[in-house]
C-alpha cells in the first residue's frame, strides 16, 4: 500500500471529527510558559481562532486518531459497515500537527477522539500516549480534550485525566433504547459508569489529604457529553430530562446537542433528513435556562402537549406567553429571580438593573441606554414611565414575535 500524504490523512480524519459539536477550550486551570521552557497557555476563557461557514467556532485541532472502527453505530460515518476512506495518524503526526498549528496561533490545543481499533483498551492507551508526549516530550501547556472510550480500563481513564484538561464520553442518544437500537455494541450502563468514574476521580483529586497536599490535577476543565438530536424519535422533554439527570449525577460541564446531519455512505436504517438546526438551537437555549435561570424541565416543556419545544419562539418567551398572569413585573421592584424570567433579559442585564436601580427610578429610556433588548421585554415589564397596558394579555401577542407564515410560491 502506498503511503498516504499527511494532508490526505488530515482531510479524512478531520472530516470524520466534525460531527462532535464541542470545540470549547474554556474553564481549565491557568497555565502559561513565561519560564521559557514550554509552549502554550490557558487563561480562563478559550479563544475561537476561526469560524467555518457552518458558523461553528474552531478553537481546537479536532481530529480522530483513526477512523477505522470495529463498531457499527448507525448514525456514524466511521462505522464498520461504511465504505468511507480510512486513515490512521501516527502518534508523531498528531504531536507535530498540534505543535506546529499551535505555534502559528491557529489553535488553542487538541481535541482527540478515535474510532475503536483492535480493542477499547488498545485504542485508549494509544490516545493517552499522544497526550503524554505532548505534555512531557514537548512541554505543551495548551488545551487538551480527550474523548474517552467508555469500555476502556479505569486505569487508562485515570491516566487520561492527568494529561487532559477535559474528558468527554458521549451518551450518543437520549434514551437507552435508542442506544441499543442504533449503537448495538455500546452499553449505556458502561457509559454512565465511566462518567461516574471520572466524577469520583475528580473529587478525589480536589480533596486535600491529611498532609494538606492536594492530589494531582485531574481533568481541570471537567467532563462533557454529546447527544444526537433527530436521529431517533425522542421528544425535547425526554432529551432535556436526560440532560438534567446527567448534569446532576455526573457534574458535567456541558451537554452538547448535535443535530443529526447527513453523512456520506449512510445506512438505510436512518433517513438523511435536513439537520434540525432550529431544534438544536432551542435545546441549547432551554439547557441554558435550566442551568442559569432557575427553570425546571417541566416548566419549559409544558407549553406544548407533544413534549417538544416551540420552534418559532425562544423557550423563555414561550413560557412567558403561557404564564401571563405573572406579568408585567416592575423593573424597579421585582426580585432577581423574577427579573431573570423576563423575555429578553439576560443575567448581565439583570445585574445592571439591580445595580442601577439603587441610583435612579428606572425609565424605559434608561433600560435602552443600558443596552437592554426591549422588543421582547416590552409587554412584560413596568418601568417608571412605561406600562404595557392591555398588551400583556392581548390575544395576538404571540404573532408579534412568531415569524410570519412562509409565503407560498408557485410549484
Amino acid at each position: 500500500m502506498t503511503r498516504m500524504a499527511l494532508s490526505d490523512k488530515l482531510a479524512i480524519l478531520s472530516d470524520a471529527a466534525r460531527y462532535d459539536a464541542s470545540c470549547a477550550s474554556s474553564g481549565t486551570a491557568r497555565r502559561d510558559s513565561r519560564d521559557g521552557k514550554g509552549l502554550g497557555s490557558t487563561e480562563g476563557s478559550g479563544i475561537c481562532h476561526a469560524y467555518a461557514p457552518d458558523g461553528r467556532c474552531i478553537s481546537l485541532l479536532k481530529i480522530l486518531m483513526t477512523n477505522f472502527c470495529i463498531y457499527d453505530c448507525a448514525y456514524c460515518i466511521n462505522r464498520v459497515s461504511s465504505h468511507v476512506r480510512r486513515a490512521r495518524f501516527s502518534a508523531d503526526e498528531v504531536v507535530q500537527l498540534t505543535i506546529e498549528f499551535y505555534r502559528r496561533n491557529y489553535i488553542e490545543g487538541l481535541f482527540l477522539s478515535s474510532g475503536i481499533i483492535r480493542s477499547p483498551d488498545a485504542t485508549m492507551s494509544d490516545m493517552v500516549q499522544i497526550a503524554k508526549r505532548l505534555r512531557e516530550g514537548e512541554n505543551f501547556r495548551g488545551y487538551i480534550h480527550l474523548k474517552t472510550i467508555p469500555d476502556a480500563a479505569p486505569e487508562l481513564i485515570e491516566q487520561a485525566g492527568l494529561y487532559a484538561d477535559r474528558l468527554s464520553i458521549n451518551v450518543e442518544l437520549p434514551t437507552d433504547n435508542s442506544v441499543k437500537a442504533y449503537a448495538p455494541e455500546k452499553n449505556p450502563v458502561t457509559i454512565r459508569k465511566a462518567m461516574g468514574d471520572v466524577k469520583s476521580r475528580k473529587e478525589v483529586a480536589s480533596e486535600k489529604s491529611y498532609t494538606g497536599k492536594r492530589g494531582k490535577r485531574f481533568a481541570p476543565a471537567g467532563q462533557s457529553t454529546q447527544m444526537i438530536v433527530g436521529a431517533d424519535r425522542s421528544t425535547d422533554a425526554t432529551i432535556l430530562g436526560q440532560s438534567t439527570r446527567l448534569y446532576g449525577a455526573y457534574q458535567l460541564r456541558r451537554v452538547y446537542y448535535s443535530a443529526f446531519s447527513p453523512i456520506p455512505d449512510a445506512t438505510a436504517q436512518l433517513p438523511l433528513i435536513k439537520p434540525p438546526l432550529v431544534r438544536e438551537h432551542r435545546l441549547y437555549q432551554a439547557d441554558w435556562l435550566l442551568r442559569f435561570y432557575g427553570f425546571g424541565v417541566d416548566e419549559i416543556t409544558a407549553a406544548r402537549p407533544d413534549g417538544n419545544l416551540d420552534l418559532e419562539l425562544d423557550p423563555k418567551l414561550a413560557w412567558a406567553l403561557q404564564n401571563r398572569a405573572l406579568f408585567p413585573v416592575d423593573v424597579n421592584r421585582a426580585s432577581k429571580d423574577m427579573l431573570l424570567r423576563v423575555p429578553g433579559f439576560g443575567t448581565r442585564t439583570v445585574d445592571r438593573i439591580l445595580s442601577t436601580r439603587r441610583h435612579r427610578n428606572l425609565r424605559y429610556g434608561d433600560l435602552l441606554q443600558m443596552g437592554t433588548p426591549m422588543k421582547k421585554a416590552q409587554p412584560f415589564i413596568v418601568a417608571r414611565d412605561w406600562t404595557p397596558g392591555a398588551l400583556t394579555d392581548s390575544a395576538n401577542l404571540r404573532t408579534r414575535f412568531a415569524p410570519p407564515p412562509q409565503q407560498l410560491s408557485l410549484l
Partner: protein
Amino acid sequence: MYTVPLPRIGTDLAWRDAAKRLIGAAIPPEDVLWDFGGEMGELFATAAPLPPPSRRIKAPQSFIQMADTVVWHKDPQRFARLYAMLWRLRHETGLMQDRADQHLAKLRQMEKGVNRCKHKMKAFVRFRDLRQGGDRRSFAAWFEPTHHTVEPTAPFFARRFADMDWMIATPDVTAQFVDGNLSFHPGQPKPDLPKDGAEALWGAYFCNIFNPARVKIKAMTSEMPKKYWKNLPEAQHIHDLIAGAEAKVQKMQDAAPTIPPERAQRIRRQLRQQKGDDQ
C-alpha cells in the same frame, strides 16, 4: 489651556500621569487638549508645562480599569471623555454604578470595542515560520487591528509563545519578542514574509472540519468579520466551501445504501464471540 502630548507607545501610563496632575490642580476638562502621537502638529505645541504631581489622587478601581482599556480606542475624543468622567467622579460618588448615565454608557461601549478588538487579535494573528535556525525558532505576523491594541495584547502572546521569538507588525506599532524580552517599535508597512507550508495543511483542516449540511454564513461573519479575511490564510477557501455545499449534501442524500464491506461481517462475528466469552 494645557496641551498634553501623548506618545503612541506607552499611551496608558502617559494619560494616567497627566490626568492625575491635572485633577490634582483642579484643571477643568474644557481647559485641556489631548494630543495623541503629535497629530495636532506645531500649532498647539506651545503649552504650559503640566502641574506638578500632587497629593495622592483617588479614583474608583472600576474607573481606572475602564480607562486602562479605553485609552487604546481609535476615537480621538477618548482622552477628553475619560478626563471629563474623572472630573465628575470627584463629586458624584456612585456614578460608576449608574449604567443609565449616557457619558458612562458611551465609555463602556468604547471599552467593549477595545476588548473585542483585543480578543480578535488574540484569535486572528497568524504567524509564519521564518526558518532562521538557531536555538529558538522565530515567527512573524502582519496584523491590522481596529484600535490601538498591539501594546495591551502583546503580553498575552509573551505568556503563550515564550519559547520562541516572534514579531507582530502592524501599521501602528510593532511588537517584538526576542530571547524572552518584549519591546515595542513604531509601526511599518506590510513586510514580505516567507511562505509557510503549514498554511496548506491548516487550509485542509478548515475545509474538512466544515459541515456542508449546516451552512450558517451570518453566524460566521458576525464572529469573523470580512475585514480580517485578507490576513487569514484559511479565508481564501470560504467562497468555494459555500458554493459547493449544497451539491455535496445532495450527493450524500442521493447515494443509495451500499452493501457493507466484507470485513464488517467478520469483525462483527468476532465481537459477538468475544462478548459471548465474557459472559
